[in-house]
């Protein structure tokens, strides 16, 4: 049986397809729960707590919605990362930008800057540095023009944010039936993300999605756009939906 110790563990490389080893010397941002084990002298601080010690943290981590799901790992040692047994890959950004599903981002080094994407559930990394992301099955790279299933979409690099495309047949059917019934008639595939322009789209070979707690906070923050009466209407609809699901 192969055994590992701090000297034989790889530095910033995969131990096996599902585990990545970060040779920590300084600071990394890491998602909560991504750490499996570590050797050495490593401290983990909430991003919120660490920003009071190091002011650069606030400049690098520019997403209030995700801040509570992340920690700063500081110190020296070897940190092993894993995510639900998914495949892990490290990516190097060279003065570039890449947008990725927030759930699949495990860690990134402190030279990179994180921003919230306009597409809900996605974050954008900017600058030069290394990050680690998970995918259910191997990552598939495609070039636009391309339409992707929102669940299988892992991220995109160097191309403009996608627009939402609705299946033409489904659109004409829902227009004919007036939009009110539209929500009920879903095959699950009529909504796609449409990519145009230059760049690369990243897909994973599965559609299993995990509940992202940040989506709730994100949508809640957007309800500020509503007027008081609109917010009341939304509230009533949500209550009606909750009651309907109970029966």
């Amino acid at each position, binding site marked *: 049986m192969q055994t590992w110790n701090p000297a034989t563990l790889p530095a910033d490389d995969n131990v096996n397809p*599902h585990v990545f080893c970060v040779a920590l010397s300084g600071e990394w941002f890491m998602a909560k729960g991504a750490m499996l*084990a570590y050797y050495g002298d490593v401290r983990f601080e909430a991003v919120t707590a660490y920003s009071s010690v190091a002011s650069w943290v606030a400049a690098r981590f520019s997403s209030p919605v995700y801040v509570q799901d992340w920690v700063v790992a500081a110190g020296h040692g070897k940190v092993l990362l894993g995510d639900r047994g998914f495949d892990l890959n490290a990516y190097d950004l060279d003065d570039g930008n890449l947008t990725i599903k927030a759930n699949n981002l495990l860690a990134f080094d402190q030279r990179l800057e994180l921003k919230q994407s306009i597409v809900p559930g996605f974050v954008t990394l900017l600058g030069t540095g290394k990050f680690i992301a998970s995918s259910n099955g191997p990552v598939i790279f495609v070039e636009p023009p391309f339409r992707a299933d929102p669940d299988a979409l892992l991220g995109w690099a160097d191309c403009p944010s996608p627009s939402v495309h609705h299946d033409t047949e489904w659109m004409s059917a829902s227009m004919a039936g007036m939009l009110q019934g539209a929500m009920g008639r879903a095959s699950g595939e009529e909504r796609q993300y449409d990519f145009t322009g230059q760049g690369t789209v990243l897909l994973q070979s599965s559609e299993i999605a995990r509940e992202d707690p940040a989506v709730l906070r994100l949508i809640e923050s957007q309800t500020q756009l509503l007027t008081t009466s609109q917010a009341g209407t939304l509230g009533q609809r949500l209550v009606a939906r909750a009651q309907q699901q109970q029966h």
Partner: protein
Amino acid sequence: MAQLTADRRVLRADLHGDRIRAASGSMVAFEGDIDFKSAGMGAGGGMRAALKRAVAGESLSLMDCTGHGRAYLAKDAMDVLVVDLAGDTLTAESQHVLAHTDGLRLDVQFAGLRGMTSGQGLATTTVTGQGQVALVSEGPIMALEVAPGQDLVVDPDAYVGCRGQLQMGLVSGVSWKSLVGEGTGEPFSLRFSGHGLVLVQSAER
């Protein structure tokens, strides 16, 4: 002598007129002439262990497999690892034990505070003797060495088992609490010191 061989997510057990014990319901196929029978209360360590197990909430249900032939064993498409023991002790969480050969003895050891915090009951299973034990894990198991001055800290959810002269301590505090998710993770992690091997899986339970 019965032989256990791991083949990714399936365990092959070759029986030559002898006996192995396997987790109940883990048989997926067999060829030859093999009898499967519930080992009942005696599942390792006799009545005393069964009683301890009932008190401690450590659940491990085993069946006896006897005869001639080959049995294929598996559990939830998890990865399989076979560990050879030569008189030493392996400690493992009971839900990771898939099968073991006849020369080994299973017992229950109280885990104290750790079991309480990780919600897996108060006890863990120890495997002692001469033979083979098969473990299952979410993703392949990594064996991490612990030596003096080379402590290892492990997420309780990723911990599978350990062997050697190891002391297990709890790490808590603000630093660790901030690392695990709100409400979902445990407020503790495990720190291993001493000399031995710690088995870690690549997914949290």
